[in-house]
């Protein structure tokens, strides 16, 4: 398996050879930042196209097919439209908070995006509580949504934001608990550590029953966390027009929109990391030849591929199920998912303690 740390080491050494230490660090930070932004926006564009195509397939339509070959340029056209649109300022809003909110959302999304294990050695930051950091930063997003709803001074956005707050805070719990379940199995909170623990089989296979339960809960909670259907109450367009971002226009709206798609990727990426081995290829212990062939596929492709396939499931949810009501949504979390999750955690601990996993 090609280790990308060779490349990153080489760049680091090259920079360090003619720069003082502080400048090297600064340049590297800028390079990584630019690289991440680039990947972020490209992935967002891809996801918009991807969702529209899947949705069209489910709904017996063709989807975008006019701009560019197979409609591939449609998303770029949409993006430029969004960029050149006027930022409408609204009377009687809290101007500062109104402008701040989309940045909070996008920053939260960027930060958690940066934690993902992109490939073998392709890791922005590696510290021993990586997954903990990821949970922490992803929670900032809800602040942006609440601020957006509050500062717009509109009853729809306020209700949307309140719903969103209740929903995200509740489902954070499920996400956290199912992540902890998997951390138990991995024995580490470091993200590369979790990936390496899955070298001889992904956790979804080795952790058997508790891992599968954790995965299902994670998928449900992750869908809710990203405010996607059937949990898209904060922006339930038939009730609240567009929920918390009703009053936003231009690129500020674009930020919410981008963050939403990227959160889909992040949730799928974390699922890939915890249950499907991150960038780790599909290995079967004992089948050396097969494992070698799998190793030929570069690790970023493994990771992004897994994330995209998991996203497809979440997209499939959205275009199939009707929306839940707020009380049903909270009932699902507090009365079902949370107790199941706690029991599942105990189960996982037993599995680990008695060494029942593969």
């Amino acid at each position, binding site marked *: 398996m090609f280790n990308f740390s060779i490349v990153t080491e080489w760049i680091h050494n090259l920079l360090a050879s003619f720069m003082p230490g502080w400048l090297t660090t600064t340049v590297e930070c800028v390079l990584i930042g630019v690289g991440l932004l680039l990947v972020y926006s490209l992935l967002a564009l891809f996801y918009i196209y991807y969702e529209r195509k899947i949705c069209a397939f*489910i*709904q*017996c*339509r063709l989807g975008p097919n006019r701009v560019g070959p197979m409609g591939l340029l449609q998303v770029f056209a949409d993006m430029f439209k969004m960029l050149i649109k006027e930022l409408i300022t609204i009377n009687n809003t809290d101007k500062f908070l109104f402008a701040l909110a989309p940045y909070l959302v996008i920053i939260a999304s960027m930060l958690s995006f940066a934690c993902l294990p992109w490939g073998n050695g392709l890791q922005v930051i590696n510290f021993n509580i990586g997954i903990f950091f990821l949970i922490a930063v992803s929670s900032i997003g809800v602040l942006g949504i609440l601020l957006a709803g509050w500062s717009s001074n509109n*009853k*729809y956005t306020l*209700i949307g934001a309140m*719903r969103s707050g209740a929903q995200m805070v509740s489902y954070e719990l499920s996400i956290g608990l199912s992540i902890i379940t998997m951390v138990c199995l991995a024995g580490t909170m470091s993200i590369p550590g979790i990936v390496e623990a899955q070298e001889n089989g992904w956790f979804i296979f080795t952790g058997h029953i508790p891992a599968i339960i954790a995965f299902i809960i994670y998928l449900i909670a992750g869908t809710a966390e990203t405010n996607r*259907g*059937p949990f*898209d*109450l904060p922006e*339930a*367009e*038939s*009730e609240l*027009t567009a929920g918390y971002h009703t009053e936003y226009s231009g690129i500020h709206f674009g930020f919410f929109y981008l963050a939403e798609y990227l959160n889909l990727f992040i949730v799928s990426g974390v699922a890939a990391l915890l249950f499907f081995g991150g960038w780790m290829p599909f290995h079967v212990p004992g089948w050396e030849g097969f494992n070698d062939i799998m190793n030929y596929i570069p690790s970023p492709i493994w990771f992004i591929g897994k994330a995209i396939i998991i996203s497809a499931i979440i997209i499939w949810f959205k*275009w*199939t*199920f*009707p*929306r*839940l*009501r*707020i*009380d*049903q949504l909270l009932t699902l979390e507090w009365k079902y998912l949370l107790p199941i999750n706690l029991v599942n955690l105990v189960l996982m601990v037993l599995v680990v303690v008695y060494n029942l996993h593969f």
Partner: protein
Amino acid sequence: MNIQEKIAGFFPEASFEEGEILRIDIPAEKLHELAQKLRDEFGYDYLVTIVGMDWTDSLGCIYYLMNTADKSQISFKAATADREHPALDSVADLWKIAVILEREVYDFFGIIFVNNPDMRRLFLNIDWVGYPLRKDYDENPELNPVTTESERQSDETYVWKREDGKLVKHVERVFQDDDFVVNIGPQHPATHGVLRFRTALDGEIIKKIDVYMGYIHRGVEKLCENLQYPQTLHFMDRLDYFSAHNYHHGLCLCIEKAMGIEAPRRAQVIRVIMDELSRIASHCLFIGTYCMDLGATTMLFYTLRVREQILDIMERTCGARMTFNYSCIGGLMADIHPDFVKDVKELLAICPKNVAEYNKLFTGNVITKGRLEGVGVLTHDDAISYGITGPSGRASGWACDVRKTHPYSIYPELKFEQVVRTEGDSMARFKNRMDEIQQSVDIINQLIDNIPEGEYCAKVPKIIKLPEGHWFQIVEGCRGLFGVYIESKGGNQPYRLKLVTPCLNLASVVDHITRGDKIADLITIGGSLDYIVPDIDR
């Protein structure tokens, strides 16, 4: 002893006019007493409509009632000669729908209903000058200019009471000062048109809804008074645009009844086929948009496929996809397209499969059940009191299908079931429509191979004049009972043409059945009632 003699016993001052529907002429002061007697002792528990009238020498109302047990109809008329401050007693305490119906009469004729709890204008601006359906109405545009400013809004409503023989106006508030009122509409995806729900909320819980109508009020009844009978037909496409054929059918039947002619059998069969095709198309659209309101966007595309197919059939025969204008007085505008039978058979073949597919995708879903079951329960008695007809009324256990209760055209010969459920919740209303698609398919199946040869339109005079008199005809639209009342003074224009539309009742019941539910349930309930805004506003 028939009902006429019994009533004559109670009210010696009443006079009677016999006809298809008995009409009792009662002095204004006995109006409420008679209404109460008719409801409590003779079982006339359903107020079909209140027709406001201006006979130039007097202003008044004609009340059409129906007995839901034996399906008999009766009407009574009360008038007042006072044109400055005309007042009649309200029957809002007897039939809940009367609150809205009386507001409509007040809006158009200026008749004040004493003791009506909500005596505001219904469709027109609160600052509108004059009462448009009065014969002496001043149409001068300077009185009611088109302004670029927002119309004045007010939270005040009025209750008129008789105190010491005088009329006294009490001012009341629709909402209190500390109510958190959210405007759902007039531009809102869930209202399916320009309708506005002023919703007082307590968190996510609905405290009260004030339905604000009239954004697309076009004054169809007023317009019809200045048009010849064949011209009035065009408006029937523009009320409930999904049951355009049914409404055409209703008005044609009423005029034909007045003229004493009957459409040829070929025309009758084709009319019924068209009615039922409209019903399938309408219910398909309902299912699609309803599921979309609930977040299941995909269903819309599945159901629209069937609707498109029906619209294509319509387009080939009628030349239009929305405003068909197909039935005319005496029969049909044109014969069916040569491919009509083939196309309809193709549709009939796929319809049951599609319904099964919708059920598989949506009806059995656990989220759907959670959202629909037990939400917005309308009891049987409330359904009758509010006059909720059509699939929504039948979901509350009220067998109110006009095709069965008061059969018209060739419906008596056809075999089909009246779909009735007793739960009264949103799920029952939804499933009723699903099942009615199947019933409509059955009806068309019985007819499509038996379209008789012959004329498609009877011979009618070039200028259609109706004799002096009045006629009332009800038919089953896609959303409920549609009624036409025509009063003629013998010319080629109606003296008064009143349209009884089901959606006004559907919209007015929203407040009653959403109280205490959540905002999300407003969407569920409003959607399941399936009102069409042009049909409310006319």
